[in-house]
């Protein structure tokens, strides 16, 4: 059940989404706007064309969608509580993503800027460690490889 980008992004219901088309970062930032907020941070992770000299053509993301959405929702609630956020929204892309396009976007607002910065960075770290999403890099030389980091803890196992 992918959440289509044309469907309503329901901030109140969940604040998280997996999308198969371009991420609407403008909408994401607007979704966390609030008269009680002074600091609003939007992070957008885009596909980099060159990594350590090697050319990347595109990325493809795969995910266990229901578990990924549930995990993102839990992380979002934890971030709101831990950092005292006013609002928070997370969107991750699925399928192929071209160089320059966004693979992930996180928006957080809080009464003060430090809350929003800290929460956004924390969410990104946790997303990269805990959420069942995987990327495959298609390189300029035609090679492709799914990333399953050997240094990562086994998913679902508390550190």
């Amino acid at each position, binding site marked *: 059940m992918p959440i289509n980008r044309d469907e309503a992004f329901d901030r109140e219901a969940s604040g998280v989404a997996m999308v198969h088309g371009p991420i609407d970062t403008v909408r994401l930032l607007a979704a966390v706007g609030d008269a009680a907020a002074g600091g609003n941070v939007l992070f957008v*992770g885009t596909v980099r064309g060159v990594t350590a000299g090697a050319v990347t053509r595109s990325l493809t*993301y*795969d*995910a*266990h969608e*229901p*578990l*990924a959405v*549930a995990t993102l929702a839990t992380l979002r609630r934890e971030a709101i509580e831990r950092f005292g956020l006013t609002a928070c929204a997370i969107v*991750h892309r699925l399928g192929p993503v071209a160089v320059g396009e966004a*693979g*992930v976007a996180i928006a957080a607002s809080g009464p003060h800027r430090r809350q929003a910065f800290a929460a956004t960075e924390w969410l*990104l770290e946790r*997303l*990269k*460690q*805990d*959420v*069942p*999403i*995987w*990327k*495959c890099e298609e390189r300029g030389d035609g090679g492709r*490889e*799914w*990333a*399953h*980091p*050997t240094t*990562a*803890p*086994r*998913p*679902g*196992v508390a550190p």
Partner: protein
Amino acid sequence: MHSHDHACDHAKLRIAVFAGMAEVIGGRHLELPWAGGTVADARRLVAGSHPAVAGLLARSAFALGNRYVGDDAPLAAGDDVAIIPPVSGG
């Protein structure tokens, strides 16, 4: 073969696989003959039938529905089971 799901002595355990594991296996699901057992049993069967993923499997978790489960968790035919290899989103 047995796409119908009633209990019988040809019962199957259907396991969703993703990313690099799906690519090596050549599909989004595995089916194991299943007369009952635990996650540990499923691990042994997958490693036996698909040795090319044994290394990645050892670094993977199992999910039952939206919960991670340990090696001693029982699995039944018809359960929503998935293998979750090390993640790389973001």
